[in-house]
């Protein structure tokens, strides 16, 4: 999955235009405010996991995911894309993902080792995300899958997919660099 898909915005994204209009024009929420609300919702989800309210925490994760998608759509629709917003998104997203993994492990729903490894993979994939323009995206969505199956399995999928994604990112950036080197020599 690419970071930003124009096709998604043009075709499927249109379905969200009425909602985007309500959020931005009627409620007056900016993309950055949506990012912070998404972060708050994600934090609440982590707190609910710690309190043993795993079902409600999954509802909060879904809500946080929707809000996380909407902030970018609002930014693009109303030409409010900014470097600051992008940076904010890049910092808060992994923070909430790691918080959720650790909350799952601390509450005994998953292993500490897998939570730490999944967190590490999420950090690694963020390092080259922008330069490579590629992110497999297997993070919070997989946790919802874990709720219906097994959180350890979900954490393993997150770890493996993001580690593979990081390797692909390395190769993409290096391949582009090689093209530049070949042109110079």
């Amino acid at each position, binding site marked *: 999955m690419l970071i930003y898909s124009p096709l998604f915005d043009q075709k499927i994204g249109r379905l969200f235009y009425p909602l985007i209009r309500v959020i931005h024009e009627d409620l007056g929420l900016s993309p950055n405010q949506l990012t912070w609300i998404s972060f708050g919702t994600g934090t609440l989800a982590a707190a609910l996991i710690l309190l043993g309210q795993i079902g409600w925490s999954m509802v909060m994760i879904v809500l946080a995911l929707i809000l996380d998608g909407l902030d970018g759509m609002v930014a693009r629709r109303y030409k409010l894309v900014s470097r600051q917003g992008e940076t904010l998104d890049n910092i808060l997203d992994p923070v909430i993902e790691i918080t959720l993994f650790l909350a799952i492990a601390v509450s005994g729903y998953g292993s500490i080792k897998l939570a730490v*490894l999944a967190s590490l993979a999420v950090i690694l994939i963020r*390092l080259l995300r922008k330069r490579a323009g590629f992110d497999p995206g297997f993070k919070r969505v997989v946790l919802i899958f874990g709720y219906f199956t097994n959180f350890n399995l979900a954490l393993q999928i997150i770890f493996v997919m993001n*580690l593979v994604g990081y*390797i692909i990112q*390395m*190769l993409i950036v*290096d*391949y582009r660099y090689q093209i530049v*080197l070949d042109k110079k020599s």
Partner: protein
Amino acid sequence: MTFITHTIVTAAGVQLFGLKGMDVFWAYTFGVFIDLDHLIKIPLYLRKYGFKKVRFYNWKTPLQEPISLSWILPLSIYFGTLVPVVAFCGHLALDYLYNPINRPLMPFSDVIVGKILPKIPSWVKEGVVLGFFGCLYIVLYLIKK
């Protein structure tokens, strides 16, 4: 270094540490077959040089640089074995003896470092490594037999 040298060094390592099962797979994957990353650059090489033979083309990708420990180490922890890290470090050491241009931090930095023991010709180093590990492999094989 060449595919043969990497294979002999890895085979000797497998014998020396008495590796079995999946550990043998990891040893050969990170000691030898990681060289398959060169295939990625074939289209670029062909585009630039065609079928002409050019020495020291930058075939290596970051998968064969120390920066790759950033993913090999977590992978080793996940599988509960240090074999990938050890085999990779062995592969790396051999390549750094041979290759004149290395980019240890690629793609985070394009800083270049030279080879280890630059005054000794690469063919001498390869010969010594091949001879030493070849003999070690034969001796270990005979002892175990």
